[in-house]
């Protein structure tokens, strides 16, 4: 039942203190005064409480179970960080208060910037971007500004491997680049020859994530960096996969010029059903002047915002970014520290390789060799034999109380699962997942149709995506 169907005219769920101020007649042209009130719910407080509590119960979440979502780093979201972000001194401050009254917030941002520089090996950082894709756009705009600042107007292309996340080409294009996709090599990594072919003096930037979305480390990264820089292009790092590198190496050390991070992945801030996240962008010194406005600076132990950046790409959103998310990431880094972050990287890789070994007994692994934080498995052969698709297996997983892995991505593998366990899952959790997966393959062999119609134990049965987009219903129909 929707909240609109629970609604009853004149039922109320609100109350407001009176403010003793005289009532002013609306001094607004008649045709600009609203006539018909919006159909918003009219419900009691208990109605609201029950509605949203019951909706929540229909959700899977990290706090409910394992999310082996490749490329998403669904690690534990510490509860203490939520509490901290809700401190009134963080949540109840206005962005335009005098700086003297927000020194704590500015200090936090300044220090977070410094800590993230240390972790990524970069030399300056902006915390403003609201998500990974927003960071990508920011980073690509910086690449654009860099070349233009040198009077180099012909660099209109950005190279993106075919294994890249969809946001990469989309962001490159939003930054005004033509996107050149290059094919991965047979080992799932950048094919140096392909790269070489694509690299010309019109290329502004190569976007990579390393390890790549297949969970494979680009072992030729130093070579790649050399090739790219030789041609006068920049090297961009999609930080979605930074978890694997923690404590071992840094994008900056590998030659990357620009890095975006996903605080909502590596740094444990919760996903909130899809956001808000935060996508800081780090750069090497020579690109610092292009970072967006404003920048948090420190002068004589006072923190300030600097709006005076003539070479900057400009504003990329209002205010200073998703501050509450920054607070959580700051608390996380303080909690883990140097020693903890090292463990994170190690255990993330251990978990992925262990689970890979377990899954190997059930599905084909797309690429050989040890993986980093994630791996890709495929049931393409199995699908041909049984008609049961990766999607069906995924839906059946839901019945067993596990979330499905990322599917049908990267696009270069078919009928695949991209599996990333993260360091916060226990061996038991991984064993249980492998056990369930094996069981489902058995079920699929025995009774393919059964699996094809999964799920069965979920709040709704399999939903019709096609109908939904063919005859889209965008909102509740009050006509009913």
């Amino acid at each position, binding site marked *: 039942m929707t909240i609109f169907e629970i609604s009853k005219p004149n039922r109320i769920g609100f109350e407001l203190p009176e403010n003793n101020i005289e009532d002013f007649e609306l001094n607004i042209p008649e045709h600009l005064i609203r006539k018909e009130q*919006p159909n918003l719910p009219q419900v009691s407080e208990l109605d609201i409480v029950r509605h949203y509590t019951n909706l929540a119960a229909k959700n899977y979440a990290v706090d409910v179970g394992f999310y082996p979502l490749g490329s998403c780093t669904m690690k534990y979201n510490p509860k203490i960080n939520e509490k901290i972000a809700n*401190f009134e001194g963080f949540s109840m401050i*206005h962005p335009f208060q005098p700086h003297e009254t927000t020194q704590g917030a500015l200090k936090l941002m300044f220090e977070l910037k410094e800590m993230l520089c240390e972790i990524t090996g970069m030399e300056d950082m902006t915390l403003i971007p609201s998500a990974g894709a*927003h960071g990508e756009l920011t980073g690509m705009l910086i690449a654009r500004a860099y070349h233009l600042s040198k009077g180099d107007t012909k660099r209109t292309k950005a190279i993106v491997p075919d294994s890249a*996340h*969809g946001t990469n080409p989309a962001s490159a294009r939003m930054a005004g680049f033509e996107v050149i996709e290059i094919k991965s090599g047979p080992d799932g990594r950048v094919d140096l020859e392909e790269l070489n072919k694509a690299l010309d003096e019109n290329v502004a930037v190569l976007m990579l994530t390393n390890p790549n979305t297949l969970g494979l480390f680009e072992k030729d990264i130093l070579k790649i960096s050399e090739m790219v820089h030789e041609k006068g292009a920049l090297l961009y790092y999609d930080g979605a996969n930074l978890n694997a590198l923690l404590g071992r190496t840094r994008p900056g050390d590998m030659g990357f010029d620009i890095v975006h991070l996903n605080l909502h992945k590596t740094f444990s801030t919760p996903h909130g059903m899809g956001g808000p996240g935060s996508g800081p962008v780090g750069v090497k010194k020579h690109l610092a002047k292009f970072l967006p406005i404003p920048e948090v600076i420190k002068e004589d132990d006072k923190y300030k915002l600097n709006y005076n950046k003539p070479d900057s790409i400009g504003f990329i959103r209002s*205010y200073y970014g998703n501050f509450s998310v920054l607070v959580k990431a700051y608390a996380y880094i303080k909690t883990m520290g140097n020693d903890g972050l090292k463990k994170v990287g190690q255990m993330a890789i251990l978990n992925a390789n262990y689970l890979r070994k377990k899954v190997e007994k059930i599905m084909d692994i797309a690429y050989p060799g040890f993986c980093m934080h994630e791996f890709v498995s495929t049931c393409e052969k199995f699908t041909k034999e049984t008609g049961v698709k990766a999607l069906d297996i995924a839906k059946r997983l839901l019945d067993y109380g596990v979330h499905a892995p990322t599917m049908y991505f990267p696009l270069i593998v078919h009928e695949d699962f991209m599996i990333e366990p993260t360091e916060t899952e226990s061996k038991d959790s991984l064993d249980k997942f492998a056990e369930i997966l094996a069981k489902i393959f058995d079920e699929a062999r025995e009774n393919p149709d059964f699996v094809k119609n999964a799920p069965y134990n979920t709040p709704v049965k399999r939903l019709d995506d096609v109908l939904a987009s063919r005859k889209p219903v965008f909102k509740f129909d009050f006509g009913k």
Partner: protein
Amino acid sequence: MHRYIPHTQEEINEMLKEIGVNSIEDLYVSVPKTIEDYNLENGKDEFSVKKELLSLNKKNKVFEPENIFAGAGIYFHYIPSVVETLANNQRFVTAYTPYQAEVSQGTLQALFEYQTMMCELTAMEVANSSMYDGATALAEAMLMAARINGKSKMLIASSINPEYLQTSKTYCTPQNIEIQKIKWTENGTLDVNDLKNKIDDNTSAVVVGYPNFFGIIEDLKSIKETLPENVIFIVVSEPISLSILEAPGKLGADIVVGEGQALGITPNFGGPGIGFFTTLQKFVRKMPGRIIGETKDIEGKKGYVMILQTREQHIRRAKATSNICSNHALMALINAIYMSAMGPKGLKKVAKMSYNASHYLAKKLEEKGYHLIFNGPFFNEFLFNAGENYYEKWKKMSENGILGPLPLGKSMPFFKNVALACCTEVNTKESIDNLLKHF
């Protein structure tokens, strides 16, 4: 090991054995080791971290809401306590994007309802399930307009929120989309003559605030009347005001965007808020962002899924309508809970109380000889000439626990000693009278 990392040494050993290596080191095939240690402190227990952050938190001044007269896009409103309780549900907060619809009906239905509410508020036909903020929502609206009509000139009211304008420029420039500003009149409304002069065949869209950055209520109807057929009319609105102001959808808007922070979200030092984005059904395939739609399961039961994903980056890649992936879904939930609690009556009361409070303040200031900059109708913000050295005065006030009307001179030199005053339902007569003592 660590409270966030469950591995015991025995388990690590078993796992290494299963993998067939002797140590974790063996797994780092060809990953160079470039660091031994970060130049960071070691980790800390939660109580120490909390203490450290409590002390940072205390270095920020929390004003009593009634003493806050700053708006400019971020507003202090009463937030019913159920909003926080319900939105903090771990099954919302720690859920991922609803890729697996069958176990994400909570998310999907809540967002579907949010979309419905935004459509109701704006009188538009489709809403997406969120953008990052008002500024990026506007920037994306312009890109969308260009996609719709293939034109590349945007005419934008100079009275738009300056950060929105700047953000739009950042987004438009690489697409070779030009932005031209339209003047304001002495009413503070859009100068329709200037608009008429600047509209040409290459004009893709016209953008106005409603209310605009100065709090002035633009006459959307007369602006719409000046627009040629295929020019997209983009309205940047403030959702609370829309329970008093005629819905932009009824006045000819093609796209309505704005910042939704006022709908139950704490100010958060400016973020996260939420960008809302609504349009007409005929334009939906050009729209950025995630959209939730209603459908049925195989047993015919109603359910919700993400729809029209072929517009999005994960399918369409470089040709997507936007690069947006993670959005501000949790904030959309907060908006929905807030609107559920307030209902049409509550929202209208908030708007009317805000209107009254700001008009009371304006009246009193005028009585004291201060001049309002514009004489157009305003909602809950207005500009006034605050006198010499207002910036210093403003800082003084803040030491006295008042976050006074924002001085604009610093960022807008032509508004030297001009302040942007804002009142909402949280300001009381006493608090306004108290503010007035400083004038």
